[in-house]
């Protein structure tokens, strides 16, 4: 008797589900399929390695981010491969709408507060517009102490520096994406070493992503400074990284010639280099979405 009852209930439930499933199917038939769908984003994480990718935070999505760049790798065991002199970035990003997100982060380097705004101007479409274009602006506030004795002519506006960036990416296939970023940097305080940098700098950043497996991709980025000072004090940053997707967050491991992570210092004040016994820094970016 019990078995008959059980079977009967199961059958009833099954029929109900079947009917509602048919309803869904009917709905799908009714709606006109969208002719043009935006391509899925070219990059999985908000950063390629250190520079911004064209991926945006979704509406009302919060990101908590922590990044580290450890000290000079080539010093070896003396500083435990960089553990002793790590730089930290900690911050958050909020997706106000699908096309606009706002961020704030604090960097160890120069005690910098970085405010950022990221806005999508155009989207890449399957068989449509070929690239995704995103605008990105950052404002750095140098939080270092400027001693009155050492810096008698210091003004409050000297704390500020700005970057304006255009991020243009194209997803060529499921596995391969590229990005090119024209960048303009303006600093209100510069040239910590005489004749090493200018107040205005143009940079062209290049980035790429190649998927190695379902959860891992290899990323590479390089930035060429268009009008550097002649003196070879700063170098063009070159960074290689791996995206590792875990459940709730993307974990990025990077090897970079730049230890500072704020965009302005990254593009203009990279002191390490990959060749000629230069310094290389290991680090990671970790994003957690809420």
């Amino acid at each position, binding site marked *: 008797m019990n078995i008959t009852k059980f079977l009967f209930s199961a059958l009833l439930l099954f029929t109900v589900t079947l009917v509602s499933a048919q309803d869904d199917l009917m709905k799908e038939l009714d709606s006109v399929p969208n002719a043009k769908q935006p391509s899925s984003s070219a990059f999985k994480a908000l950063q390629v390695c250190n520079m911004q990718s064209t991926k945006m935070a979704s509406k009302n999505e919060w990101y908590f981010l922590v990044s580290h760049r450890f*000290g000079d790798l080539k010093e070896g065991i003396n500083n435990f491969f960089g553990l*002793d*002199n790590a730089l930290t970035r900690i911050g958050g990003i909020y997706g106000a709408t699908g*096309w*606009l997100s706002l961020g704030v982060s604090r960097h160890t*380097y120069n005690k910098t507060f970085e405010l950022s*705004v990221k*806005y999508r*101007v155009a989207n890449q479409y399957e068989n449509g517009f070929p690239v995704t274009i995103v*605008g990105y*602006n950052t*404002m750095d506030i140098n939080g270092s*102490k*400027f*001693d009155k*004795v*050492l*810096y*008698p*002519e*210091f*003004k409050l*506006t*000297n704390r*500020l520096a*700005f970057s*304006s960036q255009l991020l243009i990416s194209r997803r060529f296939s499921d596995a391969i994406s590229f990005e090119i970023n024209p960048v303009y940097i*303006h*600093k*209100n*305080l*510069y*040239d*910590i*070493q*005489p004749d090493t940098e200018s*107040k205005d700098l143009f940079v062209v950043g290049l980035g790429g992503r190649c998927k190695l497996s379902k959860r891992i991709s290899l990323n590479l980025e390089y930035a060429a400074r268009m009008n550097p000072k002649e003196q070879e004090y700063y170098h063009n940053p070159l960074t290689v990284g791996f995206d590792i997707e875990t459940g709730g967050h993307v974990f990025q491991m990077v090897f970079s010639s730049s230890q500072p992570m704020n965009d302005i210092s990254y593009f203009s*004040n990279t*002191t390490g280099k990959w060749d000629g016994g230069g310094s290389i820094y290991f680090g990671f970016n970790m994003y957690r979405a809420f």
Partner: protein
Amino acid sequence: MKTIKLIILAAIGTFVTSCDSNTYSEISGFTAMPTYEANIKPIMVAQCTSCHSANGTEPGSPLENYQEVVDYAESISCRIDGQDCGLMPSSGRIPQVQIDMFNLWVAQGFLQQ
């Protein structure tokens, strides 16, 4: 939506152009007769003592008072220059004006006051 974007762009554009720039040399003070109390101590406090002090991560080479700085002066000169020794501080080379002032202080015989 388009209007908001334009407003944001205009605001940022204004911000960028409305600020004038200075070099570190322009805002720095330089004296021809640097003394420990007036000129060298502020450099040490700003750049060195967060690690090089009894409570820092380098308590073996403290740079907290006149005598300690005098004792390590030769090594400091070499380290802040970074050509022949490992560069200090590890966060990057300090402004050239401060390096020049330190070397001048050494050359003039470590004036205290």
